[in-house]
């Protein structure tokens, strides 16, 4: 048996020259909803885990949208990350479970993801706790 170094094995990444076209579609969908947000105050979410992506599409989308000015970390049943992309009003939200596995990933087209606001139920609970002091 002749030995072979790992670098000798030719690995070709499939379809480098091929563009799936998925990026065009989702970007125009996002642009449409961003207009709706501005004109009609309508928010919108896209479940990134329900997309029939080609390999690498999701990375390309994230790279294209980039990282904007603000990032928020939530700790509830595991970590969640909210960040605004370079396009104002477009947020990427990733939810992790306690084992740090992704359990949800969305694009939110909104001025502020709803979950970031303090929640009424939690505020009520806080009042109760403060009164017990």
């Amino acid at each position, binding site marked *: 048996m002749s030995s072979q170094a790992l670098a000798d094995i030719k690995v070709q990444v499939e379809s480098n020259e091929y563009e799936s076209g998925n990026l065009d579609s989702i970007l125009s969908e996002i642009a449409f909803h961003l207009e709706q947000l501005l004109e009609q105050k309508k928010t919108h979410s896209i479940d990134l885990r329900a997309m029939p992506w080609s390999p690498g599409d999701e990375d390309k989308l994230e790279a294209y949208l980039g990282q904007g000015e603000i990032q928020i970390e939530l700790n509830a049943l595991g970590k969640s990350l909210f960040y605004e992309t370079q396009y104002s009003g477009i947020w990427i939200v990733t*939810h992790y479970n306690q084992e740090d596995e992704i359990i949800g990933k969305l694009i939110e087209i909104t001025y502020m993801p709803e979950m970031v606001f303090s929640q009424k139920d939690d505020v009520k609970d806080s009042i109760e706790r403060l009164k017990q002091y």
Partner: protein
Amino acid sequence: MMNKKTLFESLQQQGVTRRGFMKYCTALTSLMALPPSMIPIVANALESAKRPSVIWLSFQECTGCAESLLRSHSPTVEGLIFDHISLDYQHTLQAAAGDAAEHAREQAMKEHYGKYLVVVDGSIPLADPGYSTIAGISNLDMLNETVAGAAAVIAVGTCSAYGGLPMADPNPTGAVSVSSLVKDKPVINVPGCPPIPTVITGVLAHYLTFGSIPELDDLGRPKVFYGQSIHDRCYRRPFYDKGLFAETFDDEGAKKGWCLYRLGCKGPMTYNACATLKWNQQTSWPVESGHGCLGCSEPNFWDAGSFYKALSIPDGDYAKAAGYAVATGVALGAAAGFANQKTKSSAVSQHTKVTVDDFDMNKDKK
């Protein structure tokens, strides 16, 4: 014991905040393949949802379906068992054995009569009940006895949904599916060999959340997961439309990720969610790893001829068909699906054996 508290109440008691609950609902909505606009509706439903009792029966099966579920990550099976459902009987997972195990099943049936869910993996042998028994009870008797008080039955895996491998020609055990025996209760088929773990949990979560069964197709499968063919959702579909096919597993086309139709991909006649949900925490799926779809979520997939023979198309001329494919991709896919239905029905009577020749992709040209 059935938890009398609602899921929301038990989460609250564990110190989970509203934000945590909303996050949980977001993950669950995604798991059920519902659009994010449904998150508030799911949250609303879960505020009053109670954990259903689940009795899981394993008949002529390989435990691959249970393995698939155990490898489910979102939510984890621990979370599923303790938060979502009360799994009262599953003879592979439960600690109790023998009489104590059977007693747990009987007790759950008595306590939740008319309300519990029955999950079945594996087919039921009718030729001779001796082929598969549990605690000396035949599969048929246990199914009939357990289903009598069930709210609904979920047939997990192709064996329980359609007979699967045990039913493959010549079907030595006389295996049949759950739906051919259970006629007076709703039966939800969750086929696949095995089914995608998140599809199994998604169907359970749907029942937990809405207290109803999801909309089903004509083969009893939830439309939300089985509504579109692998071919229609496949990321390699554009190559099919352009007539670009891999001819062998190591040619230029295979390396460039072209369509695997001619290598026997059963994507055009297979309805499943692999192309979007994928496997192993969304890492990949068969077509992405370079192998055609086997059609494992379809009835009689084992008897539909070689996994490596291209689906027949109406005129049998691949080169010509590839020429039209740009304009008529959809129609061709549908026709291939129809042609394959015929192949399958003839394969039932005449079982096709796979030989080494089937792996030789050039033999037609020789």
